[in-house]
C-alpha cells in the first residue's frame, strides 16, 4: 500500500508538472510568436524602410533646394525627420531585432555622424546654392546603398529568415506543448476517475480482507432480492460467525487474528459460485449471499461446505489451529417476505447453531423467531397489564419450623397471559427491565403488597411482615427510596412490616453505592433481606457493610441436602456466617420434612417451600392467616414426626 501511494503521488506530481510546464511553454511560445509577428517583423521592418524613405526624401529636397525650388523650412523638417529615424532604430523593444542585425549599429553610427557633420551646412543652405546641395547629396550617396541593403536585409536577410523559421519552430513547440496539455489533462481526469472509483470501492469494502462490507451488503441484498423475485428463484443468506475468535486474538495476538480472518475470507471466497457474494460484516462475522437458487437443499449444501472449508487445519505464524464457525442460513422468500427479515433469521439460526454444541450450521426454523416475538408481545402488553391490574400477586408463607406458624409472607408476581398462559416472574422482570418498564412494575408490586397488608389490618386478620422482590434496575437506576416513601405514605403502610428483598447479585452491581442505598431504605424503617444468598460473589467485607436483616439461602443449597451422601458443610458455613453477622436466616425451596430436620440441626429455624405451601392467591393466604389467628399453625412438626405424610393444610 505505501509503495503504491508513493507511486501515485509521484505520478500525480509528474502529471501536474507536465501540465503546468506545457501551459507555461505554450503561453510563452505564443507570446513570443505574437511578438515576432506583430512587433518585430512589422515594427522593425517599418522602421528600416522608413529610414530609407526619409533618406531618399531628404536627398530629394536637398536637390530641390539646390535647384532653387524647395523651401529651406521643408529641408529642415526632412532633416529632423531623418534624424529621428535613426533614434527610432536605436532604442525601444520594437526595433531591437533590426538594430542587432550585422552591420546595423555601424551603419546607424556612421549615418548619424554624417548628419552631425553636415548639419550646419544643411541649416544654412539657401535656395539655389547648387554646389553645396550637390556636395551634401554626394556625401549621402554611399549611405543610400547601405540603407537600401539594410532595409532589404531586414525584410529578407538571414535575421528575418531566422525570425520566420523561429515562428514556425515556435508553432511546432506550441503544438507539442498542446499535445502535452491534452495528454496530461486526460491523465489527470483519468486519475480523478480512478481515485473516485477507488474511494467508492473502499467505502464498500473491508480493508483487511478486501471483501464487500456491511454497507455493500445492505445495498446488494435489496437488489438481489428483487432479482430473485423477478426470476422466481430463491436467495440464500448465510451468516457465519467464527467460534473462539476472541481466544485466538487473546492468545496468539491480533496479527494472527487478522491472518485468520484473511484465510477464512479466502476459503469462503473459494467455495462459492459465480453469482454468490461473500462479505465481512465486521469482527469475526461473515455473510454469504447465494443467488439463483432453485431448491432450498442447495442452500444447506453450501452451508455444510462453508463450515467444512473453514474447519480445515490452518497455520497462523507457525501455529496450527483448527478453526470452527457457527453458521445460520435463511432463505428468501421462503422464510420471510423481506430480505432484511431473512438476514435477521439467518442471524438467529447462527446463534442457535452456536448454542447447540456439536452443530456447526442451522437452517432457520420459524420457532426461532417465537422467542423474540413472545418477548415483543409481552413487553407490548405488560404496560397495559400493569395499568389494568391483569398482573396478580401470589403469596408464599415463611414458616417457623418449631411452631409451624407463618412469620412472614413473600409476595410473588404472577401473570396469566391470554395467549401464553402462565408467565414466570423471572421472564416478566427480565422483559420489564429490557423494555424500560421496571419502575412502573416495581412500584405496582410494592403498592399492591402494601394495599394487601392494609386490607388485612382493616379486616382484622392477624398480620405478619410481607416481603417484596426488587428488580435490579429499580435498585440501581431508579430512586427506590423516593418510590417507597411515596407508596408508604399513600397506603399508610407501617414500614417495619415491609421487607425489601434484593438479590446478592443486585447489590453487587454497584458495590460502592450499595451500602448507601440500603442505609437510606433502612432509614425509612423497612427491613432488608438478601435474596438467593450464596449464588453471588459478594465478599465478606461487602456483606459486612450492607445493613441487611435477613439472609435467604438459595434453594440450590437446600436441594443439595437431598443428595446422598449428604454434605451439609456449605449450609453450615452459610448459617455460621449469618450468625456471626447477627442476621436472621431463611431457607428457600424446602420440599421434604428431612430438610427441616437437617436445617434445624444446623441452626436454621425459618424457611419456605412446597412442604409448607406453594405461592397462593390473596384469598387463600388470608384464609391461612385466619386459621393461624384461631390457633391452628400451618405446619406441625410433631405430626410429621408421628409418621404422618407431608402436612399441607388444604
Amino acid at each position, binding site marked *: 500500500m505505501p509503495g503504491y501511494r508513493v507511486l501515485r503521488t509521484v505520478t500525480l506530481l509528474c502529471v501536474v508538472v507536465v501540465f503546468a510546464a506545457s501551459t507555461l511553454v505554450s503561453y510563452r511560445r505564443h507570446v513570443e510568436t505574437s511578438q515576432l509577428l506583430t512587433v518585430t517583423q*512589422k515594427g522593425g521592418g517599418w522602421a528600416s524602410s522608413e529610414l530609407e524613405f526619409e533618406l531618399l526624401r531628404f536627398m530629394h529636397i536637398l536637390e530641390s533646394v539646390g535647384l532653387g525650388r524647395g523651401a529651406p523650412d521643408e529641408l529642415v523638417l526632412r532633416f*529632423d*525627420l531623418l*534624424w*529621428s529615424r535613426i533614434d*527610432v532604430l536605436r*532604442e525601444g*523593444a*520594437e526595433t531591437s531585432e533590426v538594430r542587432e542585425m550585422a552591420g546595423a549599429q555601424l551603419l546607424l553610427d556612421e549615418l548619424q555622424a554624417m548628419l552631425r557633420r553636415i548639419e550646419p551646412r544643411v541649416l544654412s543652405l539657401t535656395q539655389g546654392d547648387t554646389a553645396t546641395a550637390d556636395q551634401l547629396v554626394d556625401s549621402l550617396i554611399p549611405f543610400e546603398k547601405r540603407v537600401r541593403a539594410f532595409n532589404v536585409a531586414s525584410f529578407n536577410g538571414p535575421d528575418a529568415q531566422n525570425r520566420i523559421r523561429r515562428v514556425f519552430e515556435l508553432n511546432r513547440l506550441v503544438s507539442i506543448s498542446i499535445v502535452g496539455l491534452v495528454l496530461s489533462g486526460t491523465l489527470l481526469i483519468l486519475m480523478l476517475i480512478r481515485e473516485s472509483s477507488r474511494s467508492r470501492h473502499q467505502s464498500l469494502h473491508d480493508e483487511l480482507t478486501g471483501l464487500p462490507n456491511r454497507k455493500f451488503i445492505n445495498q446488494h441484498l435489496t437488489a438481489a432480492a428483487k432479482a430473485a423475485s423477478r426470476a422466481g428463484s430463491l436467495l440464500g443468506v448465510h451468516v457465519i460467525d467464527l467460534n473462539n475468535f476472541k481466544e485466538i486474538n487473546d492468545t496468539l495476538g491480533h496479527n494472527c487474528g487478522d491472518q485468520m480472518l484473511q484465510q477464512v475470507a479466502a476459503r469462503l471466497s473459494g467455495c462459492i459460485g459465480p453469482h454468490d457474494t461473500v462479505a465481512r460484516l465486521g469482527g469475526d462475522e461473515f455473510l454469504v449471499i447465494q443467488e439463483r437458487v432453485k431448491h432450498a437443499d442447495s442452500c444447506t449444501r453450501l452451508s455444510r461446505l462453508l463450515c467444512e472449508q473453514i474447519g480445515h487445519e490452518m497455520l497462523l505464524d507457525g501455529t496450527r489451529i483448527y478453526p470452527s464457525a457457527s453458521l445460520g442460513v435463511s432463505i428468501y422468500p421462503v422464510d420471510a417476505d423481506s430480505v432484511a427479515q431473512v438476514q435477521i433469521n439467518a442471524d438467529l439460526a447462527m446463534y442457535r447453531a452456536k448454542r447447540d454444541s456439536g452443530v456447526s450450521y442451522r437452517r432457520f426454523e420459524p420457532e426461532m423467531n417465537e422467542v423474540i416475538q413472545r418477548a415483543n408481545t409481552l413487553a407490548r402488553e405488560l404496560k397495559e397489564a400493569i395499568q389494568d391490574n391483569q398482573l396478580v400477586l401470589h403469596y408464599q408463607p415463611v414458616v417457623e419450623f418449631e411452631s409451624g406458624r407463618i412469620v412472614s409472607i413473600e409476595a410473588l408476581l404472577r401473570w396469566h397471559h391470554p395467549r401464553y398462559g402462565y408467565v414466570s416472574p423471572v421472564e416478566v422482570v427480565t422483559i420489564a427491565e429490557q423494555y424500560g418498564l421496571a419502575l412502573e412494575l416495581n412500584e405496582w408490586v410494592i403498592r399492591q403488597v402494601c394495599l394487601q397488608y392494609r386490607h388485612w389490618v382493616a379486616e382484622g386478620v392477624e398480620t405478619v411482615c410481607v416481603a417484596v422482590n426488587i428488580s435490579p434496575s429499580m435498585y440501581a437506576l431508579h430512586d427506590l427510596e423516593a418510590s417507597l416513601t411515596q407508596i408508604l405514605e399513600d397506603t399508610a403502610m407501617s414500614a417495619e412490616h415491609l421487607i425489601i428483598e434484593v438479590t446478592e447479585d443486585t447489590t453487587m452491581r454497584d458495590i460502592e453505592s450499595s451500602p448507601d442505598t440500603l442505609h437510606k431504605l433502612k432509614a425509612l424503617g423497612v427491613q432488608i433481606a438478601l435474596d438467593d444468598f450464596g449464588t453471588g460473589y459478594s465478599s465478606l467485607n461487602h456483606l459486612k457493610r450492607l445493613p441487611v436483616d435477613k439472609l435467604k439461602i438459595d434453594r440450590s443449597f437446600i436441594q443439595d441436602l437431598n443428595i446422598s451422601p449428604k454434605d451439609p458443610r456449605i449450609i453450615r458455613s452459610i448459617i455460621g456466617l449469618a450468625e456471626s453477622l447477627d442476621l436472621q436466616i431463611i431457607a428457600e425451596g424446602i420440599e421434604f420434612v428431612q430438610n427441616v430436620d437437617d436445617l434445624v440441626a444446623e441452626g436454621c429455624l425459618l424457611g419456605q417451600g412446597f412442604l409448607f405451601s406453594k405461592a397462593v392467591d390473596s384469598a387463600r393466604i388470608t384464609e391461612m392467616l385466619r386459621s393461624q389467628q384461631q390457633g391452628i399453625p400451618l405446619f406441625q412438626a410433631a405430626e410429621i414426626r408421628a409418621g404422618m405424610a407431608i402436612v399441607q393444610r388444604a
Partner: protein
Amino acid sequence: MRASLNVFFVFAALLLTPLAWSAPLAAPEQAVVLSVSGNITETNVPNRADFDLAMLESFPQYDLEMETPWTDGVQRFQGVALNELLLAVGAQGSTLRAMALNDYQATINLDELRDVQVLLAVKLNGRHMRVRDKGPLWIVYPTDSFSAADLPRHQSNMVWQLRSLEIR
C-alpha cells in the same frame, strides 16, 4: 506599464471646460504645431483650428508615466487631454484621423477610448520634444487598459510627430 493621472487637474479640467468651450478660439501667435479640422464648430482659420505650443499648454496639463516599445525605460509624458481639446473645438464625431509630419496616418475610434485618458503629449520627461525626438506632439495613452490582442493596434495609433487631426 504604469499610468498615473493628476487628480487635481481632473477637477481643474471640470471647472475650466465650460470656459474653454464657450470662449472664442484665440489665434496662434507662434508656429502652428497642430491643426484640427473636419466636423468642428470652433475655428480660428477657415474651416480649421490651429494651435501653437503655448495654446496647447494653456490647457490643463496631465501626467502619464509608462513604458513604450519605442523607448527604453519608464517615460513621463505631459500634455493636453484629448477630450478637452476636442471639446474646445466643438468636435462632433467619434472617428479621429491623426496625421504625422512624415505623413504617417492613423484612424482612432474615440468610442473605444471613452474610458481612457488620451493625452496629446507636449513634453517628454519634462522637456519639449524636438522633431528629432518624435516631437513636437505625441498621442499617448495608458496601454495597460488593453488586452494583448488589442495592444498592437493601439500602439500603432500612438502617433508621434503629430501634425494634424481630422474629426469625422
